């Protein structure tokens, strides 16, 4: 059911949130630069980018804490210009959680409902429901200062969900949690979003977080959106070198296009003796053009024995570093040009006879369709 969810692919689908040519300037600095973006109902949408890329500003404009300098933001059929934060059907979970320290957990959760003037019994019901949802029934009367980081995060989530907003904004929701808890919470957030059929917009600088949770990711840089796509597309078909490098690990090999043979590109590079063969038919390139070839570390194969004479895409070097991570082993291979390649190998078996060692001469190969050509 979830797999078929792709309203962005449907040209007739009406977006829930629409940014049209939005620009935000703070004095001289441009935080968001002529940005247009559609987010659909029920989406788990991630804004991903390095700090200072404008993702938080974008979210704050949606919440109503900042007004766009130019452009319009619409939510459903409503133009949000001039609508103050307290009149928007949008709720936010703050990075610092921003729990009211002078109120107990249940008072915190009830705060938004009280503002709506709901009757007392309805508020109590909804608070109880929210406490069950985040499994904090036993801590209802505690104060935020008596909670652990993970518990605070849950209270913040429950408080933001209590009003059943059309859109929930989450600013670095897992940033303050440790690794184990973060992973668990990621899946919980996905379940909650799915069960409540709500639209989630998450701001994060953690690509792993974005990849795990999001239906679609918008990668931002310098106030612009570089690519909007599903996590798979972002990882396997990055549009630019920035994305390839920002999302996951990547090896970049620079070279020049030699030509096209049987639909495959031939790229000459100082890193390899024989020109590389790349299967990336969508790119439109011309001979002599400078390009970067991006290959993910797990798509490269490292071996000690020389590959056969028919082998393609062979790079030779020596093992510079070995990092054993348990599930993976990372090899850093130094080519004759001085470049360092990162190759990972899954440790599928517990014992390996005669493993590849430091300073050994090795061959690194990759399939033509394992690489992506990025025009410089």
């Amino acid at each position, binding site marked *: 059911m979830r797999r078929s969810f792709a309203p962005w692919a449907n040209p007739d689908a009406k977006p829930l949130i629409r940014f049209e040519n939005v620009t935000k300037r703070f004095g001289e600095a441009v935080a968001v630069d002529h940005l247009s973006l559609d987010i659909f109902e029920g989406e788990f949408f991630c804004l991903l980018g390095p700090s200072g890329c404008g993702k938080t500003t974008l979210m704050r404009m949606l*919440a*109503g*804490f900042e007004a766009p300098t130019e452009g319009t933001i619409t939510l459903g059929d409503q133009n949000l210009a001039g609508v*103050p*934060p*307290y*009149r928007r059907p*949008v*709720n*936010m979970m*703050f*990075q*610092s959680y*921003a*729990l*009211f*320290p*002078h109120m*107990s957990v249940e008072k915190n959760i009830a*705060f*938004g409902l009280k*503002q*709506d003037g709901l009757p007392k019994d309805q508020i109590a019901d909804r608070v109880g429901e929210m406490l069950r949802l985040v499994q904090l029934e036993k801590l209802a*009367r*505690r*104060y935020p*200062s*008596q909670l652990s980081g993970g518990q605070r995060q849950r209270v913040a989530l429950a*408080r*933001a969900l209590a*009003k059943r907003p059309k859109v929930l904004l989450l600013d670095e929701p897992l940033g303050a949690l440790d690794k184990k808890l973060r992973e668990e919470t990621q899946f919980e957030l996905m379940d909650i979003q799915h069960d409540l059929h709500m639209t989630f917009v998450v701001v994060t600088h953690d690509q792993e977080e974005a990849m795990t949770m999001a239906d679609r990711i918008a990668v931002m840089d310098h106030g612009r959106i570089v690519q909007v796509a599903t996590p798979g597309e972002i990882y396997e078909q990055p549009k630019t070198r920035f994305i390839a490098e920002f999302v996951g690990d990547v090896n970049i090999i620079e070279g020049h296009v030699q030509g096209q043979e049987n639909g495959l590109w031939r790229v000459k590079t100082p890193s390899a003796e024989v020109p590389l063969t790349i299967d990336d038919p969508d790119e439109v390139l011309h001979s002599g053009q400078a390009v970067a070839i991006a290959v993910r570390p797990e798509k490269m194969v490292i071996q000690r024995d020389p590959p056969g004479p028919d082998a393609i895409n062979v790079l030779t070097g020596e093992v510079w570093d070995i990092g054993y991570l348990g599930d993976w082993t990372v090899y850093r291979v130094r080519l004759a040009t001085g470049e360092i390649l990162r190759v990972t190998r899954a440790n599928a078996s517990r014992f390996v006879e005669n493993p590849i060692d430091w300073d050994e001469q090795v061959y690194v190969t990759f399939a033509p369709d394992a690489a992506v050509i990025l025009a410089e």
Partner: protein
Amino acid sequence: MNRRLSVFNVTSLVFGFAFLYLPILLLVIYSFNASRLVTVWGGFSTQWYGALFRNQALMEAAWVTLRIALLSATLATVLGTLAALALTRYGRFPGRTLFTGMVYAPMVMPEVITGLSLLLFFVAVDLDRGFWTITLAHTTLTMCFVTVVVQSRLMTFDRSLEEAAMDLGAPPLRTFFSVTLPLIAPSIVAGFLLAFTLSMDDLVIASFNAGPGATTLPIRIYSAVRLGLSPEVNAASTILIGIVTLGVISATLLSKRSVLRSRRNAH
């Protein structure tokens, strides 16, 4: 770090406390002196307290002082808090530097000058000197202290708390009363108590602006001392010290209470 009390630490602590509190302690002890001579111990007695309560002039002055202190501290707290909010919240506005300077001026201005200029002002606007002129003068003097205390709290205030309240549907005014005010309340109370004690013991500004109808306790004590030391004055001062101490202790308890309450709820 060595946290044990060394001989040096204890000695400096004792000397420090002695330096600060020995004169006050002496005053308190001599207020229970049976002898009429202030410097000669003649046995324990509470007669001067009785004499004090029978002394119409002193009691009246004490009542005036209390009323002025309460009223001026209340006015100073409201104005001082508003000034602190303006200074921390409205980033840059025309005349901000001038405003800051004017808010803090009474703090560094010699009291004689403040007292004199206020007197000239009250004479110019033809306001009869007395209860109201002292109250206004004390409000002017103590407002900046409230501003300093409240402002320092507001500087460390997490603005996202207010944003969260607004995000959850509270308009600005309700956000202020349900989130901002409860959280800065301890600093406001502290500012109030500071203003209250400053007004209680002010002599200079009060004597410039006092009229025939209203004399404060410090003025009364000062003029009594000029005519010769009276043990009654010791008794009056002891009560004054008691009130101030009570104020400080209650302020401390007030700010600790919220912590205690939340701890109790945990069990």
